[in-house]
């Protein structure tokens, strides 16, 4: 299995990444190497094996329902590239 430039385009769309056209071939080659590496997994016999999503075989600890967080909007928005009237600005969202 290898990933050609069409695959890379699709993945870039899915992951919202721009990759300059002259780098696509290199990305494609390197990703194909990685795919060859992970293809080794296919040799493992896992017919009877449960997938392991997490190293902790425990159940989730839950939180009591109370409003404990103070929101400091000014502080939190100090990092924002563009804010107007307390709202984060982005190019127009079209439904």
């Amino acid at each position, binding site marked *: 299995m290898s990933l050609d430039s069409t695959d890379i385009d699709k993945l870039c769309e899915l992951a919202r990444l721009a990759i300059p056209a002259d780098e696509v071939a290199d990305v494609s080659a390197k990703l194909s190497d990685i795919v060859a590496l992970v293809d080794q997994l296919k040799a493992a016999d896992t017919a009877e094996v449960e997938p392991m999503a997490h190293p*902790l075989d425990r159940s989730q600890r839950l939180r009591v329902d109370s409003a404990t967080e103070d929101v400091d909007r000014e502080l939190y928005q100090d*990092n924002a590239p563009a804010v107007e009237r307390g709202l984060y600005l982005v190019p127009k969202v079209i439904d």
Partner: protein
Amino acid sequence: MHDKTLALTARALQAGEISSVELTNRCLERIRRFDESLNAFITVTGDRALEQAAAADRRIAAGDATALTGIPIAHKDIFCTAGIRTSCGSRMLDNFISPYDATVVERLSRAGAVMLGKTNMDEFAMGSSNETSFYGAVHNPWDRDKVPGGSSGGSAAAVAARLVPAATGTDTGGSIRQPAALAGVTGLKPTYGRVSRYGMVAFASSLDQAGTLTQTAEDAALLLEAMAGCDSRDSTSLDEPVPDYSRAIGEPLEGLTIGVPENFFDDGLDAGNAAALTEALGELERLGAKLKSIRLDNVHLSVPAYYVVAPAEASSNLSRFDGVRYGYRSPEAMAGDLNAFYRRNRGEGFGAEVKRRILIGAWVLSTGYYDAYYLQAQKVRQLISGDFARAFEDVDIVAGPTTPTPAFGIGQKTGDPVQMYLNDIYTIGANLAGLPAMSVPCGFSGALPVGLQLIGPHLSEARLLQTAHHFQRETDWHARVPPGYGENP
């Protein structure tokens, strides 16, 4: 004083032989003198450190000190630090000032530790050489043409060069142990969940764990005591009591059985490393441990399994970096539509290795590939975890190499990601299984340090630290200082 361990420094502080302000000034002086050639720090917080040091001195005078009060440390730049840039080694967060402290930072700060600054790292902790950092490669103090390992390469180099007595790190596939081995320091990755992940910029959430880079196991014990424990802000942090590690390490090493995976000592292992390791295992035997040959049958699949699981989680974890609420925004971002906005911000904000992992991660989770890759990797993860569980029925800990080779040259492997990934062949298993593991300096291959890896069952940090401590009482590999970094400024 600068080459003293954290434990000895703490004693000197308590005894009033030196003040925290003096100590902090000396460390800052060493950073000024040496860091230009190492690039171990992304941010040095000198003024703030001196304020903290002065407060620590008052606390010591008031008799209200902990073992860590007044001790200068550095944090890997993956830990959020309130009011200070937290870059994660990425252009994406070059301008990011965290509004809050990570739990690790908060706990160490509460114990009175003094933060000297933030250490360099591979971008978003993705790398084994510290070469993917937006802030440039870190140099190995043992040979500045060599890498210090990664991703906690800045922390490892800073401790190795004695710029700071100890530093924090994070380990997702070996990111504490591998640089510890390559830079000749002691690295501890605790059990998954032992230390809170809150405030640690996430790479792969089911693998990430915070730990320490120190000169000795004793120092690691002191730090872990302060860092570990349940955190209400991380529901995967373990609600288990934190042992008195400092006391536990001194207990006699009785009846210890050490498993040595025979398949770790194959052709892939550098001859110099193998020799040092054989010698180290002999030393452990002399200390009373019983060695037992074991096999970890699926460990050869740990790198492929890791390079499915870690990128999958990373691709999702890194989706939040979109240039809306924080982080890099392309100058062209608002010129196009929303899709172009995202693609530019992320395309320009992330480096090449991060992008590769995001793409692989998106791919293994996408329709048509999920079962063959993501699910299969989770099953292999189960197999690998099972291998360790079976091994721990017969042995107390597993010992072997941390890395296949000593430090390699800067630029040597950057063109071949897969070769780079194979560096973590011995370390990844512990992350997949969530096990605690350490790397302890155990000799040299040529002029470069070699690490001995110790892996234990869940929550066996005390046992690992104890083994390492006894080893370090009989050896001095951990006390060797890289040539040129011994003298005071």
